């Protein structure tokens, strides 16, 4: 891959700043592999839970103008079978892999971390986007800086891999949560998870389209929300940010970087532009760099931080 795309992320050398995010093309080692082969610099596993989960009944996705709703329901084969896929991927590829895990309490996160410690993964990502678990003030886990701090602090104590906190955009003050993650020892932030959630209705059958009724928004239309939250967070934390949400083009990826992202996730755009999307965006980034005379990614400027 073109040298111009080389980047560092937490002391790892990465061949492209693009990341395959959790939940996209990652139910199998081969899904990770084809994404890496198509130009992703880092790939992320599905968010694994302790037990296997079938996820929600279909329809689990629904398109609208500007994006998709999804309510996969965290379907995954469970941490044991999941890590087997991750390991099989690592036997074939030198592309770094982020193992994503999901739980709703410290204990389960710790158990998951122990499993991940035994794997061939490179990074551990904690999916902290649960809207259904509340702290004592009735604030959802995703929005509770105390919960987030507690979980990360505990996980950091035992994790053998750098720890990435994946944050939900659906909170008042994502910056305070990012800061809580940072102060608890998180090595990086990954943001944003899906927005909303939202709903769509079939007017002929008078039914919500998703069987789960509600699903998170992803795709181009969430990009402005992602950029804003990444920019705010970048202005106040020092740890690197994997920025994502609606990235579809090289231009979008550059926007993410200018907002403060070190790495850029590309999820739903796999639908819009095919699995080749990573290389397409890689090439567009190079084009942009050539046109604007940036010789390496570090040279691409960031917005002035918010005061």
């Amino acid at each position, binding site marked *: 891959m073109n040298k111009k795309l080389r980047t560092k992320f937490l002391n790892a050398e990465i061949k492209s700043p693009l990341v395959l995010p959790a939940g996209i093309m990652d139910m199998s080692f081969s899904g990770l592999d084809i994404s890496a082969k198509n130009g992703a610099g880092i790939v992320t596993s599905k968010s694994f839970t302790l037990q296997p989960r079938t996820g929600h009944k279909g329809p689990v*996705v629904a398109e609208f103008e500007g994006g998709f709703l999804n309510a996969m329901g965290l379907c995954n084969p469970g941490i044991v079978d999941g890590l087997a896929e991750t390991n099989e991927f690592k036997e074939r590829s030198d592309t770094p892999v982020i193992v994503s895990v999901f739980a709703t309490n410290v204990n389960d996160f710790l158990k998951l971390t122990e499993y991940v410690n035994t794997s061939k993964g490179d990074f551990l990502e904690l999916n902290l986007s649960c809207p259904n678990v509340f702290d004592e003030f009735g604030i959802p886990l995703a929005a509770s800086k105390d919960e987030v701090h507690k979980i990360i602090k505990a996980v950091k104590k035992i994790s053998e891999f750098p720890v990435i906190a994946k944050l939900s955009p659906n909170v008042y003050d994502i910056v305070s949560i990012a800061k809580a993650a940072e102060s608890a020892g998180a090595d990086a932030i990954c943001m944003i998870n899906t927005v909303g959630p939202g709903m769509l209705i079939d007017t002929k059958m008078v039914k919500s389209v998703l069987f789960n009724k509600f699903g998170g928004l992803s795709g181009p239309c969430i990009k402005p929300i992602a950029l804003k939250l990444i920019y705010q967070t970048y202005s106040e934390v020092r740890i690197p940010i994997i920025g994502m949400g609606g990235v579809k083009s090289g231009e979008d990826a550059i926007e993410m970087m200018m907002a403060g992202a070190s790495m850029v996730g590309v999820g739903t755009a796999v639908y819009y532009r095919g699995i080749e999307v990573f290389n397409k965006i890689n090439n567009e980034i190079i084009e942009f760099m050539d046109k604007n005379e940036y010789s390496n990614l570090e040279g691409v400027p960031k917005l002035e931080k918010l005061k």
Partner: protein
Amino acid sequence: MNKRITLKIAKIEDETHDIKTFTFKHKLNAKPGQFIMITDFEGGEKPLSISDCSEDEFSITVKKIGEFTSRLFQKREGDFMSIRGAFGSSFFISDGKVLLVGGGYGSIPLYLLAKYLSEAGADISVINGARTKNDLVFCDKFRELGIKLIITTDDGTYGEKVSSVDVARKILSNQLVPKPQLGNNDHFQAGAWKRENDEKKKKFDFVYAAGPEMMMKSLQGVIGDIEYEFIFERYMKCAIGICGNCTMDPLGIRLCVEGPVLSKKIVEQITEFGKYHRDATGKRILY
């Protein structure tokens, strides 16, 4: 194309005791091998092959298996169903000498294919097999196309007791030469179709198969170096190539996008073929 459309069921027809065809009036523009995702919004959205498709209507043909298909079987004409698609790859349309091998409800996508092949002027033989006579689908429809039809049953309830793969092997090696059927006299009869010595041996140009994965796996072993396409099933959720549930190892082929029809070159590289598939959790299930 992922736009959802909600349509009334225009017609429901019985194919067998547990297979029905549902027809919708809508210009779908689907090609043989493609599928739709269909739902009634009561839980479950499922991939089903297009079994027929014309200018202004299309059909799906469904075997009652579990929760969703059972509910579908209770629908009546005039009820709404919501679909998106058509999705996926379609069969190559050859104009040469071709063999179609279908097993059970797997034969469903082969009918539309046969229609297209027939229009293209191909020399078509179809082996339509099933476990037992009651599971045979589309025999009449194939007959109407005026092609060479060979019906087999594993248990001999229609014709001899024989596996479709065995028959395919004999036909592909030109030991047997299927003749255009006479009336309904188209069950497998090894004797009747023995090659006469004066019959010319023309090699087959293309084999198509649809049916249980283990059947296709065996068939692969008898095809030799002839070009082929198989149609596969994997657990599908998004059908738009993002969730990764339908990927096939080790290529990461997404069956909903690069499939469900896969060509020889791809099939030969698929190590999970005939070994395992993944369920709704992503767990591997061995065959």
